C-alpha cells in the first residue's frame, strides 16, 4: 500500500514523501518521537499518522481469503428479507403512500422539490410528526431532527399537525377507550413536540458543521428515525464565488448524509427549491443547484400544481415506477385530496 492512498492530510503526505517515506513498511517500526523529529511536526501529529498507518497495515494483513472478511458486505438475498421487513414513514396522504409503496423509505435520502407554497415545509413537519406514531398503531415510535435553514418552521403549525395526527389515531377507538387514551401523557401534542430536535442554521458553514455533528448526535439519540433539512440549498445559492468549491462541498455533504442514512437506518428528507433553466429556447423549472446536486439523492419527489390541485410526482427512484398522486394541505396536515377525481394517475 502506498502512502498516497492513506487518509491523511495533503501537507502531512508531502512532508512524509519529501523525507523519503514512500511505503507503509518504511513507517511500520518507527517510534513517534523519531518521526516527529524527522518531519519537524508535533508529537501528537506523528502519533496520529502512525495510528492511521498501523490501521491500514492491520487491514491488509487480516484478509484470510474469504469474502466475508470484507467489512459490510452482504448478499442480496439477505438484504431482500431485511428490505421487506423495512417499515416506511407514512406521509399522511393515502394516495401518496400508495405510490411510494408505504411511505418514505428508511435508509435512503429522499429529495422533495417544488415551487414556493406547494407544501414542502408542511410535508417536512408532517413527516417529523408521523415518525412519532407509536409502534402499536403502525408507526415507528421514533424521534425527529429538523434542520431549518430558512426559518420556515412554525411551532404553532407543528402543534396543530401533532393534534391532527393524534386525533386521527384516536378516531380508531370507541368513546370509552378514547377518553382513557387521551389522558396518556405521550398522547399530548406537547410530548410530540418534545421529540423533535430543532436546529436553526444561518450560514453554509453552520450547515456543514451540523452535518458533521449529526454523526455524534445520532449516536447519543438512537431513537431518531428521520432527519429533515429545510431547505438544503438555501445558503448555497447566494454569495458563493467559487462554484467548483461549492460543488465539492455539496458532494461531500451528500456523501455524509447517505452514510448517516445507511448506518443509522433512518430516512433523510431534503427539501429543495426550484429555479428556472433556459434550454432549447424555452424556460422551465428545475430543482436548484444543477446537475451535480441532482445525483445526491436516492429518490426524488417533485411537487407541482395541476389545475388548482397539488400533485406529487416520483421523478427518480431505484425501485418505484414513475407515478403521480394528488394530495392536499389541510388544517390537520397533509391528507388525501378531497376532489371527486381520486384515482392515482400513472404517467
Amino acid at each position, binding site marked *: 500500500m502506498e502512502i*498516497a492512498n492513506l487518509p491523511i492530510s495533503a501537507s502531512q503526505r508531502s512532508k512524509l514523501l519529501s523525507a523519503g517515506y514512500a511505503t507503509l513498511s518504511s513507517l511500520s517500526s518507527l517510534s513517534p518521537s523519531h518521526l516527529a523529529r524527522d518531519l519537524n511536526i508535533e508529537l501528537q501529529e506523528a502519533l496520529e499518522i502512525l495510528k492511521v498507518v498501523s490501521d491500514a497495515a492491520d487491514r491488509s494483513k487480516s484478509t484470510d481469503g474469504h469474502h466475508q472478511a470484507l467489512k459490510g*458486505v452482504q448478499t442480496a438475498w439477505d438484504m431482500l428479507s431485511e428490505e421487506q421487513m423495512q417499515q416506511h414513514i407514512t406521509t399522511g396522504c393515502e394516495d401518496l403512500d400508495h405510490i411510494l409503496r408505504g411511505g418514505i423509505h428508511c435508509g435512503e435520502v429522499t429529495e422533495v422539490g417544488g415551487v414556493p407554497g406547494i407544501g414542502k415545509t408542511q410535508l417536512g413537519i408532517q413527516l417529523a410528526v408521523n415518525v412519532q406514531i407509536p409502534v402499536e398503531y403502525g408507526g415507528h415510535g421514533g424521534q425527529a431532527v429538523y434542520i431549518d435553514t430558512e426559518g420556515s418552521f412554525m411551532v404553532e403549525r407543528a402543534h396543530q399537525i401533532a393534534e391532527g395526527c393524534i386525533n386521527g389515531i384516536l378516531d380508531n377507538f370507541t368513546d370509552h377507550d378514547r377518553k382513557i387514551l387521551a389522558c396518556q401523557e405521550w398522547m399530548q401534542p406537547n410530548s410530540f413536540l418534545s421529540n423533535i430536535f430543532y436546529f436553526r442554521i444561518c450560514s453554509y458553514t453552520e450547515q456543514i458543521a451540523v452535518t458533521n455533528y449529526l454523526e455524534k448526535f445520532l449516536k447519543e439519540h438512537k431513537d431518531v428515525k428521520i432527519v429533515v433539512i429545510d431547505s438544503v440549498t438555501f445558503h448555497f445559492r447566494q454569495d458563493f464565488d467559487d462554484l467548483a468549491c461549492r460543488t465539492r462541498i455539496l458532494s461531500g455533504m451528500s456523501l455524509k448524509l447517505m452514510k448517516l442514512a445507511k448506518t443509522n437506518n433512518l430516512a433523510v428528507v431534503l427539501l429543495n427549491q426550484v429555479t428556472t433553466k433556459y434550454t432549447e429556447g424555452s424556460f422551465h423549472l428545475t430543482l436548484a443547484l444543477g446537475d451535480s446536486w441532482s445525483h445526491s439523492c436516492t429518490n426524488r419527489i417533485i411537487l407541482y400544481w395541476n389545475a388548482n390541485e397539488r400533485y406529487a410526482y416520483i421523478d427518480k427512484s431505484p425501485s418505484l415506477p414513475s407515478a403521480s398522486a394528488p394530495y392536499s394541505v389541510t388544517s390537520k396536515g397533509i391528507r388525501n385530496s378531497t376532489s371527486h377525481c381520486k384515482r392515482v394517475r400513472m404517467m
Partner: protein
Amino acid sequence: MLTRFRVEGEGERSSMAENDDLGIERTASIQNPTKPSSSIGARVRATHDDDEDEVRVSLRPVLPHSSSDLIHQEAARALSVMDSFHQPWLTGVELLDDANRNKHVLPTGLEGIDVLLGGGLREGQLIEIAGPSSSGKTQVCLHSASCIADKGSVMFLDTCNSFSPNRIACMVNQFSGPLFKEAKERRLERIMSSILCQPIYDIFELLDTLHQLESTLKHTVKTGGYKICLLIIDSISSLIAPILGGKSPQGRLLMVSAGIVLKKLAHEFNLAVLVTNHMVGGEGGIIKPALGESWKNIPHVRLVVSRDQQSNVFTATVLKHTMRASGRTAKFVIHN
C-alpha cells in the same frame, strides 16, 4: 525461464540476496557514496535467456553515517521495483490466447446495449455509463447484475444507497420463464446469494476495499472457490466529486489511481468493471460526462444514456470503444 538480476552501485557495499519459489536469484547492492550530496544510482541488469535488458533504478541519497537499516530499506525498495519485472513479456499470440480463453463477454440482458457493446460487457475492460439524473444508469447496473449473477458472482459497490434487492428480485423473476413456484424460489435464492453488495462512502474506503478484494481474489485463484466476474461501482463520480479540483492535485491523483487499480483487477482476474458517472454542464450548454479530462482516457468503453420523455425507453450512445466505431446509438427498454 530463469532470470537473473544484479544491482550495482558505487562506494561501500551492502548487499541483500533473495531466492523465491520461481528459482530467481536477485541481488541488490547499495553502496554509500563518498560525497554526501550525490545520489545512489543502481544499475539493474536482467538476463532473460538470450536477451539482456538494462534498467536504471535511482534510490534515495544515503549519507555516509546512515544506519544499515536505511541501506537495507533502500535495497528492499530496489528489489520491489525489480519484482515488477518478474512478469515475462507476452507475445501477441499469448495475449490473443488469453483473450479467447479467459476474457468472456457477459450479456447485460438489455438488447440495445448488448448490440452496441458487441455482445455485452467484456471481461478485462472498464466500462463507464454516464447520463443525467434519472436516465437509467442504476437500472442498467441492476439489470446487468441480475442477468450475470446466473453465471458467476457479482460485486456491487453502492455509494448512493440505490441498491434495491426488491428490484433485483423483480428482474430475476422476469427472466425465469415457466417454472414451478419452488423452483423459482430456489433459483431466486441461488442468484441473489451470488450478488454481494457493499456501501462505500469514501474514496479511501474504496481503495481499501479494492486492495482487500485483490488479496481475496488471489487467494481464490489458488483454492478454486467461487469466481467474481463483474464488479459494479454506482456511482464512482460521487466518491470523486468531493476531492476533485481545488489547488492540490491530490483528488486527481486518487481518481487516476482508482482507475489504474480497477483496470489492473479487471485484467488480472478476468473481471468486467462497470462504473457510473453523472453529467455536468459544458460549453454552449451541452452537457458532458463529469470527472474531467483526466478521467476521459481511463475507461476502455464509455456510453452515454438518456431517457426519452418520462417513458420506459432509453437511448444509449457510444462515446468511446476500443473495438467498435463510436457515435452509434441504440434504444433499450426497461420494464417495470
